[in-house]
């Protein structure tokens, strides 16, 4: 499994784990999972990047899409355990302006 959902820490929070390489295939799975959680009523999504080493352009685009969907659901997105290299990329492309990094 590239992505998996951890048991919800609280009723409104869901944590989704990204795989080691965030590309089109794995990105679309994350997007699907996020949509599902938002539809289920979760209003705080934690995307866990602890296993993620590389995020490519398609991965970035999909994450921006996830942020847009969350905004439309009045939900909050949090990126957790992002490695330094990826944080630098997120900063560079303005992704971090829309999400909290923890």
């Amino acid at each position, binding site marked *: 499994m590239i992505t998996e959902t951890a048991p919800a820490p609280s009723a409104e929070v869901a944590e989704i784990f990204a795989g080691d390489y965030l590309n*089109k295939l794995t990105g679309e799975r994350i997007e699907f999972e996020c949509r599902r959680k938002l539809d289920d009523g979760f209003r705080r999504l934690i995307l866990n990047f602890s296993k993620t080493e590389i995020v490519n*352009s398609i991965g970035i*685009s999909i994450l921006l899409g996830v942020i847009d969907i969350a905004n439309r659901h009045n939900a909050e997105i949090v990126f957790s355990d992002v490695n330094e290299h990826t944080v630098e990329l997120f900063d*560079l*492309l303005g*992704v971090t302006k829309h999400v909290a990094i923890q």
Partner: protein
Amino acid sequence: MSMQPDRKLIHAFGALAELGQEVSNKNSFQETIRTSLHLISGAIGIMRGGIARYSRFAHELNMLAVRALGDDFPLTMNLTGEDERQFLAAGMTPIEVSQAQVLPFFQVYNSSFEGRRLELFVPLVVRDEIVGSIFLGEKASGEPYTSYDKDIICAMGQHIGVAIAQRNLMAEIERRSDENRQLFEEMRSTYHDTVRAFAAAIDCKDKYTEGHSVRVGKFSEIIAAELGWGVEETEGAAVAGYLHDVGKLTVERKIINAPYRINAKESSELNKHPSVGFEILQPIHHPYTDVPLAAKYHHERLDGRGYPDGLYDREIPYIAKIVNLADSFDAMTTDRPYKARRPAYAVIEDLQRNTGKQFSPELTTAFLTGMLRELKGEDRTKRFRRLLGRDYMEAEGLSEKIRYTLNEMAPTSPMTYVAAAASLGGGEEAVLQLPIH
């Protein structure tokens, strides 16, 4: 130079390389465009956007892929002649939406663009033709687009433009190919209608053999099909059968319709019809090359005793051998002015007796095999029943007779050359001297 632009450049190059791969692989076109939009968005960090294809006939942009543009964003947008001219003049240059309000296109769709915070519009121009466009919303960073961003977008836009142009070209080729196929089908249909009309005209001349040419066409078709020929070749065999007697159009009606055995002079006149038929058919460009040869040689026999040229077995065009068998079979199974139709078992015996002398063994075998398959119910097309009548095909013991005949017939006939030699009055030496090739 700081670290940041280097990193950004490497990231953008990665996206450009992936885009190059994407447009050159064999993914579906829709998927390629969707991925291309992801790559542009991810290369620069763009929140929303879309890619459209331009129809130069309808003068409209049709969205192929959209990201975060909302359900109310128009999926089709019209361009005016002025818009087209301006976009072509600008080439593949990103246009700032906020500064292009003078163009009708931006005036008409301004509210949609503003509502979704679209900032850049990039016409995709390939070989002086608009093939599509890219719509891009605000950057995730909230910063304005830099010239560096625009250069990357243009580089990626060129790939996407070429992908759309290629798709358009393929669609055009497919459309023309469909048109050609349709035209070909129409021509083929016209050709077959003409051939059938000719066959009917030939048969009209001979009141006793009404429908003969059509039946010979159908029997020839059956033989070709039983030999395993392809659809076109089988059709060719049918046409050869339909037209085999076209030369009879020039023979006097009283000779053709004579209710008695015709004399030598009349026979000589009648026997010219294969050569005359060849002369009629030769100048016509037939889709099937052997049609004139079938007309000319359909009265030749393997033993060299046929006419007009007395050819031997391998000298006779194969198609003429097929038509000869079909022609003879129809002659035996229909009433003639001087001869009643022969019973089925007698016809089968006749075929067997003349196989190797008049008929090629493999053709007789193919023909009888087809008939047997129908009698055994293995072939439900009822081809023979329709041509010969139900009663004729249900003659008692016919299946057994055919099965016995097929078992008796050798696959090749040693009689061929011996019979030919005998007709020349020679022995074994004469056989070897025969002009077989």
